[in-house]
């Protein structure tokens, strides 16, 4: 991944968030407060604007800028969590291009940051349920010799599966947890937006 691809990815995420804004809002209405679509849209709109005038020297610069902008514009829990994730990933990628192996390391750092800040574990019905399996799938695919396109496609599939698998879970973190057993039967909005970020990554890598 080079700077151009990273920038393309983030801009494509902004477009995807806009396209899925209502879906994210509806999912959040069921078990939260119906603002995930609006919050993610506000954040990534600000990110797109920030990247317009930004001159990154490394792949990490793009991701750190993304994270910092999300942290200062989104609010809620998703602002700090996505902000910390992108910033942590960006801090690992200190060169103009990143190898697939470095990308895996960056995503491990992102997962660690989310886990530390959110104190969630797998199965709590959070974004971690999409993020962690995606990183594992990416790493395994690369280990078995897949190229970046195939590996990111595997990661996207794992993230989507992870998001779908949150439906039968009872939320144990965040606002959905207040519903107790009533949170069962609804897909987690945070896991869904995380899956969106990975499907977008796979799409921009494949289109290259």
């Amino acid at each position, binding site marked *: 991944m080079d700077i151009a691809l990273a920038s393309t990815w983030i801009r494509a995420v902004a477009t995807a968030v806009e396209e899925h804004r209502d879906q994210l*809002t509806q999912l959040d*209405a*069921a*078990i*939260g*407060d*119906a*603002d995930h*679509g*609006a*919050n993610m849209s*506000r954040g990534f709109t600000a990110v797109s604007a920030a990247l317009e005038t930004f001159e990154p020297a490394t792949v990490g610069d793009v991701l750190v800028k993304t994270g910092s902008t999300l*942290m*200062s*514009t*989104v*609010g*809620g*829990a*998703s*602002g*700090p*969590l996505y902000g910390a994730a992108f910033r942590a990933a960006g801090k690992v990628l200190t060169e103009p291009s990143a190898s697939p192996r470095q990308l895996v390391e960056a995503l491990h750092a992102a997962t660690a940051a989310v886990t530390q*800040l*959110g104190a969630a574990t797998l199965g709590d019905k959070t974004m971690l349920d999409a993020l962690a399996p995606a990183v594992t799938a990416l790493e395994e695919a690369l280990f078995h010799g897949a190229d970046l396109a195939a590996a990111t496609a595997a990661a996207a599939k794992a993230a989507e599966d992870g998001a779908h698998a949150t439906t039968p879970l*009872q939320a*144990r*973190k*965040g*606002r*959905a*947890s*207040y*519903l*107790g057993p*009533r949170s069962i039967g609804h897909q987690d909005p945070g896991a869904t937006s995380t899956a969106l970020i990975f499907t977008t990554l796979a799409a921009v890598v494949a289109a290259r």
Partner: protein
Amino acid sequence: MKKFINTPESVLTDALAGIAALHPELKVDRDNRIIVRADAPRTGKVAMLSGGGSGHEPLHGGFVGPGMLDAAVPGEVFTSPVPDQILAAAKAVDGGAGVLFVVKNYTGDVMNFQLAAELAADEGITARTVLIDDDVAVQDSTWTAGRRGTGATVFVEKIAGALADRGADLDKVAEMAEKVNAASRSFAIALTACTTPSAGRPGFDLPDDEIEIGVGIHGEPGRSRGKLRPAKELVGLAMNAILADQPLNAGDQTIVMINGLGGTPLIELYVVAAEVAAVLATQGVRIGASLVGNYVTSLDMAGVSITVCRADDEMLDLWAAPVATPGLRWGH
């Protein structure tokens, strides 16, 4: 959706413009989205700062003024403020004696205020945080994000705010805030869902004869759904939950709030108030002070929350101290 708005995206900034236009005693920074006392910073006084998602008005912006908060940081509707915003407010009100962050216990608020406290420390500002978690409808703290902060926030902001006004140091003010929170319990029941401007339709569907029991203040459904019953029975249900969690003894003094969630007529709040007073009277519990009205709302939700604080003489004295804010005003 029918609302008095210009666009869903501009609700907060448009409302801030209204506060700026009609409350010269407050300074509104529309870029940073902060509301501070016009005479801030007050040198040597502990600064009281609170904030959270918008949609709960008059909480928190309506409680900025002498005797209560020095600053409020409103986030988007039902979304916590961001760290930069909280830091800007802390810098605007720190008079050298430190800043107390009054934070309702929600995942997003806790994270954003924690990040802000770290940024403030980097700038040499001492910030302490007190978490408000009074909602007994959240029963299981092991498997949830913990109890929500609701009505007790008003009690904490008023009582700790009065103590800060009297010149107490940061530790003393924080200790009092924690004490008030620990002595307070709340429970809420909703008759309707609320509609956020960005979603444009009610957060959940509720048949005409059903109610949501144990709701929070963000339009999310409650712990369970039930049939509508007379106010006496609904209050009984709420008071049972409150008193089961914190039993009161004959002779105890309390501060009680009967709070509308935004769409409940005052006459209904007084019907509820009568039932709350009756329940407390049968237990020999005294109501030393009370509030009836809309103080911690959930946009246009029809519903009521009941908050009971077991108060000692010092708390009652601080409660009665003068306050001059858009939302609470007496003794001036």
